[in-house]
C-alpha cells in the first residue's frame, strides 16, 4: 500500500487514487485481518516461549542465588557449574547410548522398510505381498504401551534384558509400519516408465531398487528417518522397562533419575534438560522443513 501512495504522488494524473480510496483500502485491510487468529498466535507465542526461556536462563544460574533473584531475569553472572555437574553425572555415556540406539534403530528400520515398500509397490500385488501390506497397516493401530508386557517377556526370553539391543529391536519393529506406508506412497509416485527403462537396460529388480528407487525416494527416506529418530531419541517407556543398569541408561531415563537425585537443585535439573535437547534443536535449525514434514508423515490432509 505504501508503494501505491508513493507511485501515485508524483504523477498527479486523473488516475491518482483519491485519499478516501487509500483509507478505504486500509480499513478493508484491517477488516480482513484475522484478529482471533492473530491474538491466539501472539498469546500462544508467550505460552511457548516463557517456559523455554525460563529453562535456559535458569540453567546458567548458580544454585545459591537462583532463589533470591527474579526468576525471569537472566543471570547477572552466568555460570557453567550446572552443566559441569550434569556432565560429571555420566551424561556423556547416556548421550552415547542414546546415539547408539537412535542410529541403530533408524538405519535398519528405514532400509528394511524401504525394501518392503519397494516390494509391495513393485511386486505386482501377489497374495503374500497384499497380506504383508495389510498386516503392516494393522501395526499402525497397535500402541506400544499396550503390548509392552509381552515385549518385556520376549526380551527376557531372548536374554536381551538390560542391553541396548533390547531397546533397538522393538524400536525397529514399531518404526516399520508407518515407514512402509510413507515410503510405499512415495515409490508409487515414481513414473512407471523409469522402472520400465531400467528393465529394458537389463537391470535386475535388486539393482533397480538401489540405483533408481533409492535415490528418487531420498526426501521420503529423510522424512521417515527424522520421524523415527525423534521417537527413539525421546522414548521413555522402552528404556524404563527393558533396561536397569546405569551404564545402559539413555537420555530421557537419565533425566528422570537425575531429577530424582537433584530435585532441589533446579538449575542443574534444567541444565540437564537443555543439554539433552540441544542436539535436536541443532537438527531442527539445520533441517526444519524435513523435520516438520517428518512429523506429519503419512497423516492425510
Amino acid at each position: 500500500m505504501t508503494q501505491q501512495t508513493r507511485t501515485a504522488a508524483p504523477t498527479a494524473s486523473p488516475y491518482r487514487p483519491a485519499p478516501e480510496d487509500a483509507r478505504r483500502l486500509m480499513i478493508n485491510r484491517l477488516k480482513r485481518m484475522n484478529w482471533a487468529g492473530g491474538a491466539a498466535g501472539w498469546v500462544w507465542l508467550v505460552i511457548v516461549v516463557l517456559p523455554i526461556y525460563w529453562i535456559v536462563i535458569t540453567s546458567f544460574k548458580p544454585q545459591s542465588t537462583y532463589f533470591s533473584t527474579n526468576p525471569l531475569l537472566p543471570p547477572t553472572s552466568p555460570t557453567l557449574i550446572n552443566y559441569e555437574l550434569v556432565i560429571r553425572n555420566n551424561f556423556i555415556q547416556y548421550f552415547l547410548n542414546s546415539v547408539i540406539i537412535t542410529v541403530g534403530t533408524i538405519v535398519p528400520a528405514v532400509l528394511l522398510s524401504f525394501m518392503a515398500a519397494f516390494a509391495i509397490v513393485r511386486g505386482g500385488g501377489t497374495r503374500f505381498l497384499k497380506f504383508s501390506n495389510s498386516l503392516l497397516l494393522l501395526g499402525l493401530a497397535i500402541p506400544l504401551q499396550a503390548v509392552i508386557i509381552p515385549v518385556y517377556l520376549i526380551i527376557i526370553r531372548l536374554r536381551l534384558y538390560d542391553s541396548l539391543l533390547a531397546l533397538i529391536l522393538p524400536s525397529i519393529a514399531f518404526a516399520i509400519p508407518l515407514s512402509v506406508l510413507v515410503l510405499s506412497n512415495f515409490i508409487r509416485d515414481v513414473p512407471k516408465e523409469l522402472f520400465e527403462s531400467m528393465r529394458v537396460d537389463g537391470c535386475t529388480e535388486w539393482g533397480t531398487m538401489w540405483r533408481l528407487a533409492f535415490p528418487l525416494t531420498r526426501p521420503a527416506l529423510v522424512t521417515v528417518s527424522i520421524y523415527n529418530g525423534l521417537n527413539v531419541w525421546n522414548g521413555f517407556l522402552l528404556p524404563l522397562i527393558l533396561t536397569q543398569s546405569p551404564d545402559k541408561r539413555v537420555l530421557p531415563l537419565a533425566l528422570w533419575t537425575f531429577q530424582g537425585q537433584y530435585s532441589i537443585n533446579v538449575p542443574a535439573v534444567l541444565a540437564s534438560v537443555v543439554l539433552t535437547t540441544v542436539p535436536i534443536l541443532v537438527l531442527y535449525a539445520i533441517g526444519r522443513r524435513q523435520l516438520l514434514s517428518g512429523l506429519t508423515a503419512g497423516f492425510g490432509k
Partner: protein
Amino acid sequence: MSTVAPPVATRKQQSPAGGGRSFSLNWLVLPALVLFIGFGIIPLIGVFVLSFTQWDGIGEIHPAGLDSWMTVLSDPGLPHALYVTFVVMIASWLVQTPLSILIGVFIAGHQRYRAVLAVIYFVPLLLSSAALAITFKALLDPNFGLGAGLGIPILVQDWLGDSTLAMGVVIFVVSWQYIPFHSLIYQGGVRQIPASMYEAAQIDGAGRMRQFFSITLPQLKYTIITSSTLMVVGSLTFFDIIFVLTAGGPGDATRVLALDMYKRGFQANLMGPASAIAVILVVLGLVIAQLLQRLGGSDATASQLEGA
C-alpha cells in the same frame, strides 16, 4: 549403496516373466515382516494370552483362567482409571482442538512474521515427554518454582499436590506438548482449501468470521477427524508425561489406564491383571477410532493410530 548390495540368490529368475520377479520381491518384505511380527503381532496376541495367566514378571507363567479378569473387573480401581482416562481425553480434546485450529489457520497465512512464529511454535515437539514433565514440575514447584520466585500468590499453589489442580496441570502440559503437532496438521489442511472459495465469499461480501465458519471449518472436516482421532486415541496411551509429572498422584487422581497397567504389572508384579488392562486399552482404542471414522465417513487415514 549399490556396492553393498549382495547379488540376490534368484539371479537366474530375473527374466521379465512376472513369476520370477515377484518371487524375489517377496523376499524383500521378509526382514521387515519378521521383525514386525516378532515385536508387534506376537505381543498383540501375547497380551491377550497373558491376561489369562498368572505371572510375577520373573518366574514361571501359570495359566489362571479368568482370575486376572475377575480381579481387574471387580476392582474399583478400574472404573476410576477409566474415569480419569476419559477426563484427560475429553478435556485435552476440548482445549487442544479449538486452539490448534486457530493457530493452524494463523500459521497457514504466508506472511513472513507468521512463518517466524511457526518456527518457534514447533519447538515443544522436539522435547521429550520426560524433559517436558521435569521442566513443568520444576516450574510449578510451590517452593522453588516460578510463582514462588516472582512472589505472585495465585501462582504459589501446590499444583501437583491437589487432585483438581494436578489434573489441570496434566491437561495443560499435554496441550502444550501436542498443540503444535495438531496445528501443523491444520496448517496443511487450511493450505489445501482453494483460494477461489475465499475470493468468491469476499465478492459476496462475507466477513472474516463468516468465511471462517462457512468455508474454513467445513473444509477442514476431514482434518478435524484425523486430528481428533490421533488426539483421542493418543490420549489413551499417555504414559511418560504423567508418570514423570505426577506418577498418577496425588493419591490416584491422575492414574490413567496406561499408568494403572504399568503399576500393576511392573510395580506390583501382577502381569496377568496388567495384561487384562492392556487388552482393554487396545479394544478401547480400536472402538473409539472406529466410531470417529464412522462419524466422518470412510477415510483412508482410518488406521493412523500412532500412539502420538
